């Protein structure tokens, strides 16, 4: 299981947790639609093994990173997202022993309040849906689940590398890199790089035909890195964030120019961009996208360095 930001060390703090939710929902899916169990359970198991194998990080020896594909090597990062992702995928392997979710007719006793919420009287009427027959709907959802699973499986397979499949063939040659992931276009890179297998990075991230080169040296993308200068820089107010410049370019214009700085604050290599469209792409890649300035501004203003998680201290 792998998200597209991992191999370029480009995952932001939100994105580090995404695999937790896929794991959670894959596990729960096996209970909602039991015919999916035989497909999903092996995926969760292999992913859990890979995840646990790399939970060897300092200082306690059981800190998890995010790159489960590194054959049991910790990627040097730590955080709530990494821990949660590993936790959920391991829990998912136990789903066969867990009681499925109840309903209000099978033991659920949480009190209902159909009009809960503020101003719920202003809810617009739902679209008038010509009700399909129940059989139609059952069939439709059955097919939907099946196709979703098939696609998910394809996506998973394309993104899985050696550890989880024991043979380091995935990603071993040009053109086999999960073409379903449109943002990963490794085809033009000539010698391909198995994600993260080489710390000497020359990865390519792009959207469709455009590509953003990411050049850099070995580094840690740890947002919680113990490296003091980096930590200090994350939350200092020295104009790291585009909005700090105070020169009015708080909107999209700032994203491009802010990239190098934004990456460098997490000790990432600079992003070299070729044109405006790439900047747009980069902006959009943040947790769903680019709320970046608003959110980071908030972080910057609300948290001081001493408020950083003390996990690694």
């Amino acid at each position: 299981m792998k998200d597209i930001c991992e191999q370029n060390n480009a995952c932001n703090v939100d994105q580090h947790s995404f695999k937790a939710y896929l794991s959670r929902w894959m596990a729960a899916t096996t209970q909602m639609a039991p015919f999916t169990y035989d497909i999903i359970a092996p995926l969760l198991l292999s992913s859990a093994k890979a995840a646990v194998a790399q939970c060897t990080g300092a200082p306690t020896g059981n800190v998890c990173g995010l790159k489960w594909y590194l054959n049991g090597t910790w990627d040097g990062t730590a955080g709530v997202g990494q821990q949660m992702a590993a936790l959920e995928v391991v829990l998912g392997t136990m789903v066969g022993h867990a009681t499925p979710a109840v309903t209000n007719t099978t033991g659920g006793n949480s009190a209902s309040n159909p009009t809960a919420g503020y101003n719920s009287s202003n809810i617009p009427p739902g679209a008038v849906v010509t009700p399909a027959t129940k059989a139609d709907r059952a069939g439709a959802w059955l097919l939907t689940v099946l196709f979703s699973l098939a696609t998910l499986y394809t996506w998973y397979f394309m993104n899985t590398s050696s550890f989880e499949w024991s043979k380091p063939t995935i990603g071993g040659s040009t053109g086999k890199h999960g073409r379903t992931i449109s943002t990963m276009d490794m085809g033009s890179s000539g010698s391909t790089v198995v994600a993260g297998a080489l710390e000497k990075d020359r990865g390519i991230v792009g959207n469709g035909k455009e590509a953003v080169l990411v050049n850099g040296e070995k580094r840690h993308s740890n947002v919680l890195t113990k490296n003091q200068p980096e930590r200090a820089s994350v939350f200092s107010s020295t104009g790291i964030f585009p909005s700090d410049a105070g020169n009015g370019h708080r909107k999209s214009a700032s994203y491009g120019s802010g990239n190098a700085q934004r990456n460098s604050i997490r000790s990432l290599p600079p992003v070299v961009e070729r044109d405006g469209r790439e900047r747009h792409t980069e902006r959009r890649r943040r947790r769903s996208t680019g709320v970046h300035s608003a959110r980071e501004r908030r972080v910057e203003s609300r948290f001081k360095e001493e408020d950083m998680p003390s996990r690694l201290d």
Partner: protein
Amino acid sequence: MMSYYVGNQYGQTPGILPGPYYWWEAGAMWGAMIDYWHYTNDTTYNDLTMQGLQWQVGPHNDFMPPNASASLGNDDQAFWGMAAMAAAEYKFPNPLQTQPSWLSLAQAVFNEQTGRWDTQFCNGGIRWQIYQITGYDLKNTISNGCFFNLASRLARYTSDDLYAQWAEKAWNWLWDIGLIDKNYNVYDNTEADRLNCTTIDHAQWSYNAGTMLMGASTMWNYVRATLSIQLSSSKSVFSNTKSN
């Protein structure tokens, strides 16, 4: 994971994580702790989970606490709502009578988000952000997908078909706009205000596919269950007819 949480310490705010973690991720974390309790029966963190979730319900019992409003997206609210939904589904201990029930919290999130269904652009869908801050112009898959996820689970839990109709509406919108393609690839977002959702950001993130899978399988479960009830009742009609 819980060693990062300091909300139970003196002078800290229960329910949230310290920086750099955003408000929403704490809600997701409580969902993980409910999973943890459910799968392992270890109750060690139940009190913290109860306190954390209830502390953040906000003045309207809808997971919109004023302190979180600076970055509050529909997806953010939904992650808290789904944690409450899981608490109801897994029979996590009920809160005090004076506190909102798990189910009602999920219903509150759902009700408010139906009110944010926006037909001004893109023929529907809910926006990423609740307030007009950066990201308000986007309609993204995780917001609509978590709405779909929550709606399907409310339908299953309550057997109220209204929720199911909203779930189908959300799925159909995502499908029609192209955030889910015909091969069931799930993409990230689309811009509403300027582009009327005519372009799609084709990035694929794991959680987007995950939330759609969860909702779809829940809908299958729900529709199959209601179908079997109808079948059995119609069978009895037939047998009654026969015996008569």
